[in-house]
């Protein structure tokens, strides 16, 4: 039993006006554990706080109940007071007799009666309080960024700029991501490479940043401030530190006919390759599926021409163990597969392409050196049909595509249409849309320019079918505004394919115990107030892995994520919330129900040897809560049938004592 002091606040007349504070402090005097009870005008004032401190000393109080305003207002204040008086700050309970009593009840009798009951509940609880100490854990001052697209690049640069080391893990041979494949960027039409590649160089030259390209994260252990990550560096058969990126090997490689991923397979690359001229790191990579030396042990030409001696056919995959304080997920997106949308004849005609393929076709570094041609015959297309929302905003029951809006397609399609009309004014450009969505700075102006200045023909309606016929693509569509069917003979059809999270995101989420929505986008900790934090402490979200985003949004989110990481890494130690779950191992069944409901992945299991009541020893699987990760929601406590899992500060017995006190 505690020695409880009760302090009833008048809050001027705010409380005293509707609650007889004298009667309250008098009534609470005889409650179990109470050794001192008083009232005062302003408990939160310096004088009030001093009164508490003195009473703690004089009456050897071990627990404090303040009957005052909401704990949301002054709980922190009174906890500090208690600490100053030498008490554990968590030995304080507040009875909310202002917001939830004096302010909502008019009658002084009712108000007083209720205030007494609320006071009793707080006393009943404080009698069962235990001193709590927040756990502390050290912080590894290094961040990991998973994904080296613009989101990852920006995040890494910002973190490095604050002076913290950062590692980028990128599964492709180069960083740069989707942005590196783009031609121009909306709405300003500056060239993507011109603004991205300097940043890539910055990354390469920043001595705080390490790039693990052609690498993957294969395991994540630990928790906020203390992650242990296993990174698999895939063998690229070229010594990264020696290769100068001169390209001699690429030129000499005899195995030239391999689809070039960077150009989405629209042209070929050799077995040894550098994805594009500005690649970072600018290092060659051997495709083991294409290289005859690796497959059959014959050739070895690249090794011969490499004056640096960087080629190493014996290279093996390498596993690195690294420690991090924070992890940023920036795994990005991909256009969805067009397999289920064969009404647009994507598989039947080379002249039906996706928007990303269109980007490559119009890019000066692309397969056609920037000349807009039909992939089938290299001719200049005169009629181009853009189809919007291919796979976006689909009906859930359609069993194909995505229900969400991919967000970026309206704008890039307007860009494509405008650029086409700008460069090739003789081209007829049609855009079929459901809605045109342009909420963004200068976005609507941009779209209107496409329509008004460049004469792009926007038609509200969907394309029903595309049929290749001779060298034409018969496009059958409906115009919903004119309410008629349209038949267009197109030379090129461009599909604005929906975008989806990268396939690597799901297994990564499992490793990180970060949650995902049904579309495999990472879930943010709070949709409004914590948009770049994942619910798992220490894991942050950057870019399209969290939801479709354009570049400006991605960059701002990347910066936000970086600032959160910096905030975390600045700390030497993390102080946890002491009101965390804890498991009584003797009662734990090891059933995993608590781990199933934990939103933070704070619960793990270990096999421990126990001396059982029947004098035998037994190895049992028991839950253990990581207090640095637990946020104290209590979901686990209710799911535990044996009651082994309880929540400090809001324990089963404490809440039941409150119930009892209120109901008696």
């Amino acid at each position, binding site marked *: 039993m505690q020695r409880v002091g009760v302090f009833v606040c008048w809050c001027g007349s705010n409380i005293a006006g509707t609650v007889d504070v004298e009667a309250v402090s008098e009534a609470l005097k*005889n409650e179990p554990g109470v050794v001192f009870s008083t009232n005062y005008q302003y408990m939160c004032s310096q004088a009030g706080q001093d009164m508490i401190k003195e009473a703690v000393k004089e009456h050897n109080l071990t627990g404090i109940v303040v009957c005052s305003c909401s704990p949301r207002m002054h709980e922190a204040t009174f906890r500090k007071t208690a600490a100053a008086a030498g008490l554990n700050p968590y030995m304080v309970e507040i009875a909310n007799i202002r917001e939830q009593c004096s302010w909502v009840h008019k009658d002084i009798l009712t108000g007083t009666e209720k205030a007494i009951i609320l006071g009793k509940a707080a006393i009943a609880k404080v009698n069962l309080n235990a001193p709590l100490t927040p756990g502390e854990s050290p912080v590894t001052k290094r961040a990991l960024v998973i994904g080296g697209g613009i989101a990852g690049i920006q995040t890494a640069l910002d973190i490095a700029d604050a002076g913290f080391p950062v590692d980028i893990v990128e599964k492709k041979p180069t960083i740069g991501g989707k942005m590196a494949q783009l031609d121009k960027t909306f709405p300003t039409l500056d060239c993507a490479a011109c603004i991205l590649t300097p940043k890539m160089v910055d990354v390469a030259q920043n001595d705080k940043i390490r790039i693990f390209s052609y690498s993957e994260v294969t395991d994540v252990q630990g928790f906020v401030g203390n992650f242990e990550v296993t990174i698999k560096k895939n063998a690229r058969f070229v010594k990264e530190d020696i290769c100068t990126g001169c390209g001699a090997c690429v030129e000499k490689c005899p195995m030239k006919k391999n689809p070039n991923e960077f150009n989405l397979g629209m042209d070929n690359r050799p077995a040894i390759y550098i994805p594009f001229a500005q690649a970072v790191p600018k290092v060659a990579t051997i495709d083991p599926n294409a290289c005859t030396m690796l497959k059959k042990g014959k050739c070895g030409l690249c090794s011969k021409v490499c004056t640096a001696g960087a080629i190493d056919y014996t290279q093996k995959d390498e596993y690195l163990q690294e420690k991090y304080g924070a992890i940023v997920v920036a795994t990005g997106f991909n256009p969805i597969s067009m397999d289920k949308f064969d009404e647009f004849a994507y598989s039947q005609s080379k002249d039906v392409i996706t928007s990303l393929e269109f980007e490559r076709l119009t890019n000066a570094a692309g397969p056609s050196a920037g000349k807009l041609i039909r992939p089938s015959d290299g001719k200049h297309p005169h009629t181009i049909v853009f189809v919007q929302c291919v796979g976006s905003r689909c009906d859930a029951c359609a069993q194909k595509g995505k229900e969400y809006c991919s967000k970026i397609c309206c704008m890039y399609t307007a860009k494509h249409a405008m650029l086409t009309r700008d460069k090739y004014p003789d081209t007829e450009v049609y855009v079929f849309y459901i809605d045109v969505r342009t909420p963004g700075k200068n976005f609507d102006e941009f779209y209107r320019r496409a329509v008004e200045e460049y004469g792009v023909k926007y038609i509200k309606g969907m394309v029903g079918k595309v049929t290749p016929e001779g060298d034409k693509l018969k496009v059958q569509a409906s115009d919903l505004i004119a309410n008629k069917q349209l038949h267009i003979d197109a030379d090129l059809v461009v599909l604005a394919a929906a975008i989806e999270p990268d396939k690597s995101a799901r297994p990564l989420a499992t490793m990180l115990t970060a949650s995902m929505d049904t579309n495999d986008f990472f879930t943010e900790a709070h949709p409004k107030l914590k948009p770049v934090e994942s619910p798992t402490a220490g894991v942050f979200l950057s870019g399209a892995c969290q939801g479709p985003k354009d570049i400006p949004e991605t960059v701002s989110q990347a910066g936000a994520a970086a600032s959160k990481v910096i905030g975390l890494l600045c700390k030497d130690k993390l102080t946890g919330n002491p009101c965390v779950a804890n498991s009584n191992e003797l009662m734990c069944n090891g059933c995993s129900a608590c781990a199933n409901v934990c939103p933070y992945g704070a619960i793990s299991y270990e096999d421990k040897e126990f001396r059982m*009541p*029947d*004098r035998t020893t037994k190895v049992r699987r028991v839950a253990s809560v990581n207090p640095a990760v637990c946020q104290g929601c209590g979901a686990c406590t209710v799911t535990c049938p044996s009651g082994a899992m309880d929540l400090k500060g809001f324990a089963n017995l404490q809440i039941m004592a409150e119930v*009892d*006190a209120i*109901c*008696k």
Partner: protein
Amino acid sequence: MRKCKAEKLNDIFALIAQDMTLYLPVDTEGGAAFTKWNENVKYSESLNTVRSPKDFFFPQTENLMAFKTEGKNIEIIDTRSETEDFAVFGVRACDTKSFDVLDRVFLSDPVDSYYANRREHGVIISVACTRPSETCFCTAFDIDATSPQGDISVWKTETDVYFEANTEKGAALMEKLSALTEDCDNTAVESAKESTKAILSRLPLKDLKLSAFGGGKTMELFENEAWDELSQSCLGCGTCTFVCPTCQCYDIKDFNTGNSVVRFRCWDSCMYSDFTKMAHGNNRLTQKERFRQRFMHKLVYYPENNDGLFSCVGCGRCLAKCPISMNIVKVIKKIGGKTNE
């Protein structure tokens, strides 16, 4: 000996119920149970009630006292209510014998006044068995199912009901029933007894022998290796204990009502893991120990302290109700060894 016509039995009940509460076995969804008599309930002919009549004298829960605090003062309240007179009709011979077992526990010094009070106010009207069941083994305890004890013994034939008072209490009650009953001799009763005895002699458990048990056998039986096997599938529930007419263990607990603290006692079972838990912990840590305790108590410890009287009356309730069909008969046969072959 007095008798009345079988169809008059309900009138007898009505007459008894005029002065006291009358309980008798009635068939319910849960099997036969002692129920308060009223004109609409029907006396059950079934052999055993699921719960034994010990409930009337030693109820499952019973308030002993209460405490109330006023300011810093504590007030102690006697929660005992005056017990009214009551009669229990239809108690079988085995169950009447169980009161001997309970009396020795509760009425020996110091007398349990709660129990004594109820015993004083209760009249037991036993009924002789006519259709024993295969689970019956009262014969092993020398109980004559055809001559039940109690304040009044009753025999039923197809046409008549016969009464014989055994105690003053019983005689007093019979006196009240004199208008509805008439004097008679015991020929019909004796012949009924004979035919029941014929059945008793055919019971499958009739040869159960207890010679291996009794006072003084503690050292011999305690370490018997059969306890392991017998107890291995015991679930540790309290079914056997709670349906048993002779089990008498209880726990005393406090319940905080918010306004006062009620001290009550409730049945406890030695099969439970926390039974007789003390400051140092439990003294029987495995189910084997708990299982052994139950049967050693019934067959060895109790007789040792009570002139050889076994704390089992062979009613067979535990045989019928154990979830895994482990029971005292199996224990007697296994541990008793050769005597039962």
